[in-house]
C-alpha cells in the first residue's frame, strides 16, 4: 500500500537526497523524543550526585537508597491500590458509554459524545477544584475512594475511545443476529460483543491505569499523606533536592510502563494476526 515517499519521488540523485534528508530528520526528531528518558536512565546509574556528561563511573547505590526508604514502597502500593480500581471502574463506565452511544438509539448523541470526551480536554486543576469540596461534603476526602473517583473521571474517555474504535471494526448486525436467534442481553454481550471488543477494553483499561499511575494534579488535591501516590511523592521530593534516587525511581517506573505497553502491543498484534488468519 504505502510504498516509498511519493512526494519525494523525483528521479535518481534528487530522490536520494530528499530521502536521506527525511531519514536524518527522523533520527534527529527521535533523539529529541527519547533523550530525556535516556538521561534519566543514565543518571540513575551514575556515581555522581550531579549530572556531568558523560558520568565518571557507575553504581547501583541509588537503587539501594530507594529500597531503604519505605515511603517509596508505600507510595507504589498506594498507586496500585488506586490505579487498579480506577481502571476497572473506567472500563465499566467507558464500555457502557461506548455501547450506548455507538450502538444505541440515544437522544442528544452529540452532547453525550462531548460529555464523555470532556474530562480529557479540561484542565485537571479545574476538575480538582470542583471535586474537592464535593468529596469533602460526602466525607470521602481522606480515603482511597476520593482519588479513585477523580481518576475514574479522567479514565472514562480513554476506555470510551478504544472501545468505540473496536465497536466500529465489526458490523452491529452480529449483535442483532445473536438477539434474534434467542440470546438474552447478557448472553449476546458475553458471547458476541465481548469477544469482538475485548482488545479495546483491555487497552483502554491499561491506558486508564497508566494515567492514574502518572496523574499529579488530582492526587495533590485528593490524596492525604496516608494515600499519597508515586507522582505526588516524586513531586514532594523534587522540591527538596534533585537526587539521583528520583532517577532510580523513574527508571523503575519506566521499566514497569514498558512492560505494560509491551503487553498491550502484544495483545494488539495477536489480535491482528488472528484477523489475518481468518479470510
Amino acid at each position, binding site marked *: 500500500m*504505502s510504498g516509498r515517499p*511519493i*512526494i519525494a519521488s523525483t528521479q535518481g540523485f534528487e530522490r536520494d537526497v530528499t530521502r536521506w534528508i527525511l531519514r536524518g*530528520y*527522523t533520527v534527529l*526528531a*527521535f533523539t*529529541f*523524543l*527519547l533523550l530525556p*528518558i535516556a*538521561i*534519566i536512565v543514565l543518571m540513575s546509574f551514575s556515581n555522581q550526585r*550531579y*549530572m556531568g*556528561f558523560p558520568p565518571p563511573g557507575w553504581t547501583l547505590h541509588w537503587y539501594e537508597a530507594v529500597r531503604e526508604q519505605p515511603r517509596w514502597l508505600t507510595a507504589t502500593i498506594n498507586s496500585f491500590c488506586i490505579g487498579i480500581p480506577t481502571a476497572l471502574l473506567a472500563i465499566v*463506565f467507558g464500555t*457502557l458509554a461506548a455501547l*450506548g*452511544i455507538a*450502538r*444505541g*438509539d*440515544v437522544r442528544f*448523541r452529540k452532547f453525550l*459524545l462531548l*460529555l*464523555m*470526551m*470532556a*474530562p480529557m*480536554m*479540561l*484542565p*485537571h*486543576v*479545574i*476538575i480538582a*477544584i*470542583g471535586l474537592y469540596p464535593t468529596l469533602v461534603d460526602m466525607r470521602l476526602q481522606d480515603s482511597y475512594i476520593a482519588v479513585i473517583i*477523580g481518576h*475514574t473521571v479522567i479514565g*472514562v474517555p480513554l476506555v470510551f*475511545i478504544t472501545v468505540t474504535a473496536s465497536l466500529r471494526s465489526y458490523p452491529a448486525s452480529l*449483535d442483532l443476529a445473536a*438477539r434474534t436467534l434467542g440470546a438474552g*442481553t447478557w448472553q449476546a454481550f458475553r458471547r458476541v460483543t465481548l469477544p469482538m471488543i475485548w482488545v479495546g477494553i483491555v487497552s483502554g483499561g491499561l491506558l486508564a491505569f497508566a494515567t492514574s499511575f*502518572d496523574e*499529579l*494534579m488530582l492526587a*495533590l488535591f485528593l490524596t492525604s499523606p496516608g494515600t499519597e501516590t508515586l507522582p505526588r511523592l*516524586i*513531586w514532594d521530593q*523534587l522540591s527538596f533536592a*534533585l537526587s539521583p534516587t528520583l*532517577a532510580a525511581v*523513574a527508571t523503575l*517506573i519506566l521499566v514497569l510502563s*514498558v512492560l*505494560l505497553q509491551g503487553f498491550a502491543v502484544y495483545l494488539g498484534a495477536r489480535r491482528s494476526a488472528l484477523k489475518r488468519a481468518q479470510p
Partner: protein
Amino acid sequence: MRPGPLTDPAFPPTNAAPRQQYRLAHGKYWSIAREHAWMVVPPVAFLGVFLLLPLARVVFSSFAQPTWTLGNYAKVFDESFYLRSFWYTIEVAFCVTVVCLVIAYPLAYAIASSRGRSQKLMSVLVLLPLWTSVVIRSYAWLILFQRQGPVNSILLALGWIDEPLKILQTSTAVEIGMVHILLPFMILPLVSAMLKVDRTLLRAARVLGARPVKVFTRIYIRLTLPGITAGCALVFITSLGFFITPSLLGGAQQTMAAMMIEQAVSVFLNWPLASALSTVLLAMTVSLYLIYAKLTGGEMGMALK
C-alpha cells in the same frame, strides 16, 4: 428488500395521528438500538455527579462566595498579574502548537510512508515517551538544562558558547519541555490522517505535470488537514491546562493559568478567587473544545485512535 420493521421505522403505514405515528415508529417494536440506549445511564450519571456538578459548583461559587458578588472577577481583571498570566498561557500554547506541528509533520510523514517493521518500531518509539510519567520527563529536562547539565556541557565542548547559558526559568525551557510532552499527541492524528491519503491522487498530480512542491501544498496538505486540525486542537487545548512542566522549568515570570489557580488555593487559601480563575480558564477551554467539535463534525478525539 421488502419493507419491514427492521428496514423502515415507519412500517406499517398507518392513518394514525402524527403523535401516535411517532409512537408506533419509535415505540412499538423492540429494537436492539433502544436496548443499547439504556447503557448510557450509568456513565452519564457518574460524570454528571462527579464532573458536571463539581464544574457547576466552581462557576457558582465564583459568583456566590463570600457573598453574591462580582468582586472575584474584579480582582481577576484588575490585577495585571492574573491577566498577564492568562495572556502568557495563550502565548505559550500557541508557540507550543506551532512548534509541535512543524516538528511532527515530517516525522509523521516518515512514519506513514515507511512500512512493515520500521513503521512498527517508529510507532512504538513515539508511544514510549507517552508512557513515561510527565513529572519524570519534566524532571529530565530540569537535569538537562541545569547550569552544569548535559546541554550546557555539550554546547561548551563544541565551542558554541563561552559560558553556561541560563536555560532554566525561561520561556524557552518551558516551551521545549511542553513540546516534548505534547509531540506524540500531534504525531498520532497526523499519521492516521496521512495513512488515509489516497496515494494515486499524488501520482496523478505528478503525471499531470505538477512539481513536487505543488503536489505537496495543493494536494497533500489539504488531504491531511483533518489530522492537522485534530492535532493542533488537542495540543493547544491541553497546553492551556499545563501545570507540572511550567512549574518545574519556569520561574515566577512563567506562571501559567493552572499554576495560578493552584497557588490561589494552596498559598492564598482563596477558594472564591481560584473558582473565578478556574471559570475563566474553563470558559476558554470549553469554547475552544466546542469549536473543535464543530470543525471535526462531532468525530473529535476519535482521530486519536
